[in-house]
């Protein structure tokens, strides 16, 4: 019988059930007492065809222009999932069809598409004979993920209210379904048995796959239930066995009330927040900064807690947290400063306290067991912080799965884009999407249940605090390195210590005065892992994660590089802002760690402390002259080291040359050194500014590695340099 499951019949026109095709299992049919589809189908089709209708949706953009997506439904007829993209449908002026089952001459049960009312322009019922009858959603069935759609006039006067019978264990059952596929009505019937149950996942749960949105009837032609989803849990047969009238429902009015309650809670208890950060230095480096946030301001929002403090669900790295300078909130049009209180230990969120108390009782949390809440109709809120107010998108929401992380299981919800808060019907927050503080996996959000979150609102991690006195310190080890590969490991006889070259960074140079030099690290040593004192989990220095490109710098061909590529030339000297140093920076200056390395094919280790790197080209101040079109920086130690310049040799680095500028025409190029201005040796960008100030005809001595030339530039306006 199971093999019969996929027997589907279809027709090509809007009509009653078609002439049914042959039963493919006819020959196997041994048991005479069983009723075959081919014998019962004509009878069933005449009984139920008119009850199998479609619900037709037209969508429109929401008030804020929002055009949501929906998971749609699995279509039994074409075997595909019909996802719903309102943006596309609106653009193409198309309708969306989803099957429904008429319980009487007006009421149709269909699946909840989880689209906000705001986005629904029009709903109608399409009958089996193709009539369109305007309709409205009147109720939701959260447990079944169903909706009741009621037609404004009768679909078919002959449709009497369905009376569902109980199904017996041994009944032979059939599912009947119909839908509209590319404008044509198609219908089908399949046998269905509890013996078709399949085991799901690792749990002892059995599911029977069924055609979704179908009517289930027994062999006597009596209705025993309807399906909404594409499977039925075996131990909960009552879900489809009984009259939908018995399902727990929420009326459309209740639903609207819930949404306005949530909206009013949000209105009273959220504020826009601006987090001001220490600006990052401008850099010509193409590499990423160790800080993740490039801007110096974050626009976000906060929930007002009943303690009077504010909860800012914003994930910031340690480095970025250290850059925090000020918090500003906007409450009822007034800008109020707020103080940092703490950053949550486990999650990416900050608690702040406004300098003036806010006149509200605070947002409420739903502290029920999350498993009880998950099956309800929930409301996902997407926040849009504006300058002096908040805007929200409140959308019906439903749990659609789980993810596990660190022995915790977190639910996932639909919709999941930009999802920030999940509310229950009572206007309380039941889940908040927060970022787990995991060093190696930033940027991943999980839905934390309110009852887990609230007890942690006063557990802080001091590493994520602002550090006003210690801004933008990059930690460094002071090595240049190259990622290991199979051949390099083999040639040194350390394949077994480096997982065949997949682990390890070969030290190629040691910077003078660096922690690595003090610890006695030498070129040729192979760094294997870092274990921070605060966390026993080592960071493996794998070739993949720390892959290095061995390009060198194209000095030989430097004159052939066109101007418009100047900004893309990576700097020739070592960048202190490399991945290894970024990891150390994130631990924080002064924190201890163990460095494991290989020397002479033996494992060694060194106890280290994160030290601040000296000022380097990457973060040294810069000045820019628009008249010339160049940005200049002081010579830092690593640049002098690379260029073999003594500490007292004059020079400033050309950090950037604007293409098309006077300097670019004169052949000045990034990473060349200006050693003299009008015959005067120049030692700093400040002095350079003084020497150039107010002049429009300048003569520079420019040095590229070891070769100098004189460049004379006439500018249209007087030259002056401004701080960047």
């Amino acid at each position, binding site marked *: 019988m199971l093999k019969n499951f996929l027997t589907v019949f279809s027709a090509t026109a809007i009509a009653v059930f078609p002439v049914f095709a042959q039963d493919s299992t006819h020959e196997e049919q041994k048991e005479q007492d069983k009723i075959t589809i081919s014998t019962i189908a004509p009878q069933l089709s005449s009984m139920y065809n008119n009850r199998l209708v479609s619900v037709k949706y037209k969508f429109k953009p929401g008030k804020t222009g929002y055009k949501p997506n929906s998971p749609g439904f699995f279509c039994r007829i074409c075997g595909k999932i019909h996802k719903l993209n309102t943006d596309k449908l609106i653009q193409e002026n198309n309708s969306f069809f989803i099957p429904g089952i008429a319980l009487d001459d007006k009421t149709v049960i269909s699946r909840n598409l989880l689209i906000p009312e705001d986005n629904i322009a029009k709903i109608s019922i399409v009958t089996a004979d193709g009539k369109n009858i305007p309709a409205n959603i009147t109720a939701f069935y959260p447990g079944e993920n169903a909706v009741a759609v009621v037609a404004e006039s009768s679909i078919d006067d002959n449709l009497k209210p369905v009376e569902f019978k109980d199904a017996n264990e041994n009944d032979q059952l059939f599912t009947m379904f119909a839908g509209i596929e590319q404008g044509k009505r198609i219908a089908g019937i399949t046998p269905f048995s509890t013996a078709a149950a399949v085991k799901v996942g690792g749990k002892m749960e059995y599911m029977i796959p069924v055609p979704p949105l179908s009517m289930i009837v027994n062999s006597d032609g009596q209705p025993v239930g309807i399906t909404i989803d594409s499977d039925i849990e075996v131990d909960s047969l009552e879900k489809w066995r009984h009259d939908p009238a018995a399902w727990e429902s929420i009326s459309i009015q209740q639903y609207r009330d819930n949404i306005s309650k949530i909206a009013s809670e949000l209105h009273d208890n959220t504020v826009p927040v601006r987090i001001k950060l220490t600006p990052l230095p401008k850099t010509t480096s193409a590499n990423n900064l160790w800080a993740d946030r490039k801007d110096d301001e974050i626009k976000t929002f906060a929930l007002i807690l009943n303690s009077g403090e504010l909860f800012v669900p914003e994930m910031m790295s340690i480095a970025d947290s250290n850059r925090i300078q000020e918090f500003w909130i906007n409450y009822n049009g007034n800008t109020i400063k707020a103080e940092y209180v703490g950053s949550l230990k486990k999650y990416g969120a900050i608690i702040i306290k406004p300098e003036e108390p806010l006149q509200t009782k605070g947002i409420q949390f739903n502290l029920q067991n999350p498993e009880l809440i998950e099956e309800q109709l929930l409301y996902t809120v997407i926040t849009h912080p504006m300058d002096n107010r908040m805007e929200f998108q409140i959308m019906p929401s439903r749990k659609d799965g789980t993810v596990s992380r660190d022995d915790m299981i977190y639910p996932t919800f639909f919709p999941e884009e930009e999802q920030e808060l999940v509310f229950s019907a009572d206007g309380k927050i039941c889940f908040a999407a927060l970022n787990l503080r995991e060093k190696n996996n930033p940027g991943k959000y999980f839905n934390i249940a309110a009852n887990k979150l609230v007890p942690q609102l006063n557990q802080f991690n001091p590493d994520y605090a602002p550090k006003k006195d210690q801004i933008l310190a990059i930690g460094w080890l002071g090595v240049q390195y190259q990622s290991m590969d199979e051949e390099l490991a083999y040639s040194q006889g350390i394949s077994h210590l480096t997982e065949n070259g997949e682990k390890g960074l070969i030290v190629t140079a040691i910077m003078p005065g660096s922690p690595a030099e003090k610890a006695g690290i030498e070129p040729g040593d192979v760094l294997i892992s870092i274990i921070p004192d605060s966390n026993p989990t080592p960071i493996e220095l794998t070739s993949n994660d720390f892959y290095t490109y061995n390009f060198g710098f194209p000095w030989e061909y430097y004159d052939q590089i066109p101007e418009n590529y100047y900004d893309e030339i990576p700097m020739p000297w070592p960048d202190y802002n490399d991945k290894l140093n970024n990891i150390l920076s994130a631990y924080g200056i002064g924190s201890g760690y163990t460095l494991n390395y290989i020397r002479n094919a033996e494992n060694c280790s060194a106890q280290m402390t994160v030290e601040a790197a000296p000022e380097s080209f990457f973060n040294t101040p810069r000045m820019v002259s628009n008249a010339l079109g160049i940005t200049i920086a002081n010579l830092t130690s690593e640049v002098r080291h690379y260029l073999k310049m003594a500490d007292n040799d004059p020079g400033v680095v050309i950090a950037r040359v604007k293409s098309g500028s*006077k300097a670019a025409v004169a052949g000045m190029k990034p990473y060349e050194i200006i050693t003299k201005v009008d*015959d005067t040796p120049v030692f700093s960008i400040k002095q350079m500014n003084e020497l150039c100030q107010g002049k429009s005809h300048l003569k520079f001595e420019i040095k590229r590695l070891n070769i100098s030339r004189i460049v004379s530039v*006439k500018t249209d306006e007087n030259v002056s340099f401004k701080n960047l």
Partner: protein
Amino acid sequence: MKLRFLAILLATAAAGCATTDNPTRIENDFRAIVKEANSKVFPAVVYIHAIAANTESGTDKANAVRGSGVIISPDGEVLTNFHVADKASSIRCLLNNAEAYDAEIIGFDKDIDLALLQLKIPEDNPPLPYAEFTDKPVQEGDFVMAMGAPWGLNRSVSLGIISCATRYLPESSEYSLWYQTDAAISPGNSGGPLVNTEGRVVGINTLGADKLGFAIPAPTIKDILPRLREYGKANWAWLGLELQPLNDFDQNIYFDFDSGVIVSDTQQDSPAQKAGFQPYDRIVSVNGQPVTIKNSEDMPELRRKLGMMPFDQEINFDVIRDNENITITVTPQPKGRVEGNELILERWGFTAKTINRFENPFLFFYSPNGIFIYGIDSSGNAAYSGLQNGDIIMEINHKPVKSLDELKAVYDDAVENINRKSNALFMIQRNGSIYYVALDFSRDTNKK
């Protein structure tokens, strides 16, 4: 004058104007002139076939190089390009009368790309036909013929004009300008003469692409030829001055002076540096003779003049520094080698070369005494391991390697013990950064 007259008329005829009474006569006249010129030089053109080591490929596989040359003396001196005779293990010359002789290199200069060969002719051989250089200045528009063996097709002549008589190609020579011509010059023409309508050599064809051919001008050759005969090389004097012209249109740089030349830099440890030259000094005269370098085209002549100064004699420079006249006296040094030695390591698949300050100024900056990878066998072990041209060899198996001798010792040892260990760990410097490369040479690339 006759030639010019003809040229104008020819242009008219070619434009299809039938106003000339007797076009045939004029064409015949020009043909006669070309023929006459051709007959003077053509017998002196030789077709050169050289076998040269190709170290750039990292193997000692030899290449056959085909080029041209011109006999310039009755006893068999042949001028050709340096790049035709470079690294040749044998040179054979085919004369226009179908006689063939071997030749040896008498002298050469890489910068100007000139080589002087001597044909190995029997002592009782009658004097050979030879070509003479022109004494007259060459101007744009002059008719010229390129003779030689384009693509190995010897005894070929092509006709064109001088497109530019003072072409400066900074990448191609620091001591010489070039004659640019639209006479077709193809590979194989290298070393052949560029001849005027009087049947005199105006230059040696050297570079060419499409309608852009470049020849070494006769004045340059006449300057350098006696030195090639005497020293076997140009024997340039080295001062170590880096000079800049007063005007540079491309970079929009104009110094507000009417005379002199700007010193932009002095080379490290050079006579000019020791004598006290400083950047932005302006040289106004050399040994009392005024000097003015307005544009970069004027530069090669001055460099050549300075390069040909005797080594043992002081040169007096009148210099203006900070509006004051000073005199700087420099005694030049021999420039010495302008190219490093080479060593082919076949099993490893590369050619190593010593770093030369003139040839590899940037490598010299990184490592003044060192060796670098000059040529890579594209299918060899070094290429497979990721070594690249221009990599400076610092260490092999953690031992410093600074010279070709040391490299040879390490290599020989490695190849001898290949059954025990068939890889080597190279520490190299690539454009200023240190890298490690493991060279696996277990594969014998000579075995197919």
